[in-house]
């Protein structure tokens, strides 16, 4: 029973983090991050640290995540519309399912909303559904499937053969026409390998998370020739391959350290579970300075953040006028023609 819960939450966490870093839409990133937070909160509760778990939810999700979501409003293309049309590696495509790209040849209408249930009845659609059903419980094969499907107008015969990939991690079908993504895929594969190795025997317990993360059905149409002109509109920095390797290396080193080290002395005796009381006692006594310091820091942070975001007095700053939406000469409602 414990293993079930552990597996569930671990999956939630890791997939959330993975999704956050690879999806093309920033808003989805935020949601994936929320999933990751919930997973970590669950893990905390499993570890009998219920106070911290609840704090995690309240502070991270209720506070920081909301802040991030607000900041997304300032950014360019938070919905991932422009990104959705670009070439991406399979894992990114996996996590970006459902994003409708912005197309110039359309009649100005669509601006890249997330299409939940776009029912285009093409052959691809049926294949998609088929693939979706079979993908519950596995990730990489599905991604490849898509990719191979989409990028091969003239290779339609190949699309079906990547289906049965249950649990076969090694059998990576590199039938991907896109050379440039090979390295990324490899790195991403290894990435996935690591965490699969960790909760190896829990494949069979991967229940419906996938389904709730993917949107059924989409219309990828003519995606492959959807390069965005000459603009350098990438979600990632040029250091991406390095970053992937580095992340991988750090994980491997940490896990290696873990396995190589002699075991920690595990404590099995009873302990107080009245967390608030214990924490309160410690905070007011032994850790008073830290407490005060943290409080001071919070205060400074608040003041700093408020001060920083004022409309400034720099000549190039548009100042308060740019943010005030009411008009200077409002029209009375009765005279309002519109």
């Amino acid at each position, binding site marked *: 029973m414990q293993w079930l819960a552990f597996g569930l939450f671990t999956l939630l966490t890791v997939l959330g983090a993975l999704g956050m870093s690879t999806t093309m839409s920033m808003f989805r990133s935020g949601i994936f991050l929320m999933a990751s937070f919930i997973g970590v909160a669950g893990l905390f509760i499993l570890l009998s640290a219920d106070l911290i778990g609840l704090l995690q939810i309240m502070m991270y999700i209720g506070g920081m995540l909301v802040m991030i979501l607000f900041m997304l409003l300032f950014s360019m293309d938070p919905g991932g519309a422009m990104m959705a049309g670009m070439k991406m590696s399979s894992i990114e495509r996996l996590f970006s399912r459902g994003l409708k790209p912005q197309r110039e040849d359309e009649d100005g209408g669509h601006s890249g909303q997330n299409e939940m249930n776009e029912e285009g009845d093409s052959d691809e659609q049926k294949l998609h559904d088929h693939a979706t059903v079979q993908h519950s419980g596995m990730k990489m094969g599905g991604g490849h499937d898509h990719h191979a499907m989409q990028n091969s107008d003239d290779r339609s015969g190949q699309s079906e053969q990547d289906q049965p990939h249950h649990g076969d991690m090694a059998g990576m079908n590199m039938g991907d026409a896109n050379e440039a993504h090979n390295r990324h895929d490899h790195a991403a594969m290894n990435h996935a390998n690591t965490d699969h190795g960790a909760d190896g025997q829990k494949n069979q317990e991967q229940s419906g998370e996938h389904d709730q993360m993917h949107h059924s059905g989409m219309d990828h149409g003519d995606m492959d020739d959807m390069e965005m002109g000459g603009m350098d509109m990438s979600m990632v*920095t*040029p*250091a991406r391959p*390095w*970053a992937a390797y*580095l992340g991988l*290396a*750090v994980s491997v*080193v940490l896990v290696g*350290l873990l396995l190589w080290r002699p075991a920690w002395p595990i404590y099995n005796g009873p302990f107080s579970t009245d967390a608030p009381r214990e924490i309160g006692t410690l905070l007011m006594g032994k850790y*008073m*300075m830290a407490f*005060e310091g943290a409080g001071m820091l919070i205060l400074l942070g608040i003041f700093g953040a408020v001060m920083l975001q004022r409309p400034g007095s720099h000549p190039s700053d548009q100042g308060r006028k740019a943010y005030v939406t009411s008009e200077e000469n409002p029209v009375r409602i009765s005279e309002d023609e519109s």
Partner: protein
Amino acid sequence: MTALLLAVPLAPLVASLLIALWGKHSGWLNVLGVGLSLLALLLIGSASPALSGPWFKSGAFQLTAGLALDGLSKVLVYLVAGMGLLISVYAVGYMRGEKSQPKFFATFSFFIGAMLTLVLSDSFALLFAAWEGVGLASYLLIGFHYTEAKARQAALRAFLMTRVGDVGLLLGWLLALNLTRTSDIATFLTQVNTLPATLLAALFLIGAVGKSAQLPLTAWLPDAMAGPTPVSALLHSATMVAAGVYLLLRLSPLFAAAPAVLLAVAIVGGLTALFSAFVATAQTDLKRVLAWSTVSQLGEMFFVYGLGGPFAAAFHLGVHALFKSTLFLSAGAVQHAADTLDMRRLGGLWRMMPLSALTFALAGLTLAGLPPFGAFWSEEAMLGTAVQNGWLVGAFMLLLIFLAGVYISRAGVATFWPRGENAQAHEVGTLMAWPGLILAVAALFGGLLGEALRGLLPFTLSPEVTLSWRISAISASALGLAWGGVRAVRLGASPALGDWPRALGTVLEGLTLGTARGTWALSLGLQWVEGGLNSGARFTAHGAMGGSRGVQRAESGFDTSGRVVADFALSGANLTARAEKSGFAEGANKLANGLGTLGEQLRGLETGKIYLYTLILFGWVLIMALAAVLWR
């Protein structure tokens, strides 16, 4: 009793808050606050209450906070409160008609409250907090006319230069906290013999030097005259700058245990006194003369303290506060009345402002040290201590007295005596004239302060001077007064001793600013060298690794290790170049060329792209973690 003690610093602070919130009748509220303080002091009378408690505790350390009214603090607290009251009354008249008076008086009250806390505090933590508060108030008050660039710069300069000194104070008291486990001053002083006294005393000296504008941190005080005159009168002549001397006096057991630092104090004080006295004889702005005079007098106090005469220093501190603030008050009256402080344009004001002229004259005579005016006794005490250390030192003291006479009579005569062209002025109102007069009369009787101090201070008295020295002192001051006065009458406001003191003043300023500029230029030069240094590191990394380009590029970005190796490389190259001429020179040339090109290539690493920096950061973390683990 302890409630009264608490009221002393709290009354002005509460007044400050009230003024800030309410905003009306700010000047009189300020006076009320200080008045209540003084009343509380008078009610305490001759008792010595103390009040102390733990502030917080962390592990083995304990920070206390408290107020204690012992002899030394009694002297200073009466000084601050009394002068604060009179100058607050003066300020009501001075600031009449200015806008944003509430801001001024709120800060003024806050300053008085903080200064009282500083003087009364018995724990380093509270003292430092008040020290910083006083510095903040000074910044706000100097920059009160913030629309003028001069005032803003002066405020910033004052704050930053005292900040440099504050680092010394902070390090000093933190070290004391670390060693004695508590921040209580009294406890600290009893343990002085077991602590590293020289280091601690040196650190505290740095703090005092910053706050009291001694060399090399003098430049801020003359510039601080850009603030309104009540500020100059209270802060920068009598109280805030006296905080440095107060610190020295309070910690005299510590300094007694560190004779090397005492010598340093004497040297710093003496040099400052001499140089600034010379500079004061050449200034043309009345307030600047007084500012440099303050620096000089503080230098004299430091000098005498360093020679082992804390009593004389304390005595002179008290009397100096009285007469210096008087001088500033009348200077302010002159500014109000004649709208200028340039002595070349002033003259003959005594007919139009007789009260202010009288005030200035009394205070000026006091400064010069003529008997029976107040400072004669304090200067005699200082002379006694000086003579005790040798007659050369005594002669130095006489020189300082002479110079004091010169600059003050030059200033006074140039302003008030009828000369060629006379300025137009009118007498100032009662609020401005009378506090000055009261203070001047108090300064007159400053000699009586010595008697009072004898009972209060725990220091030994200064030795008496012989008659010959006494006569020499009197003649020195008279001579100085005469010289200055005559030159002022005949030659207008030209420098009394010729032009070379002014050059000295610029040299002085240049020295302090020059060190800063030198460091800046050095850092710029180092930056140029750094290109080569970094590539030297890369060269070594090349050879050491001999690996692939990617690894090289990553490793050569590690500045710190590169710099260490590069320092080695640079010193090695220097030695070689100096020792050999021909054979090695060519090799060195080639090496330098190679380093240069490599440096160019390495420059590509500092692209400014954040993701590269974060990548290198985490990569380095990884490598360090591996190294730490593998290096069993």
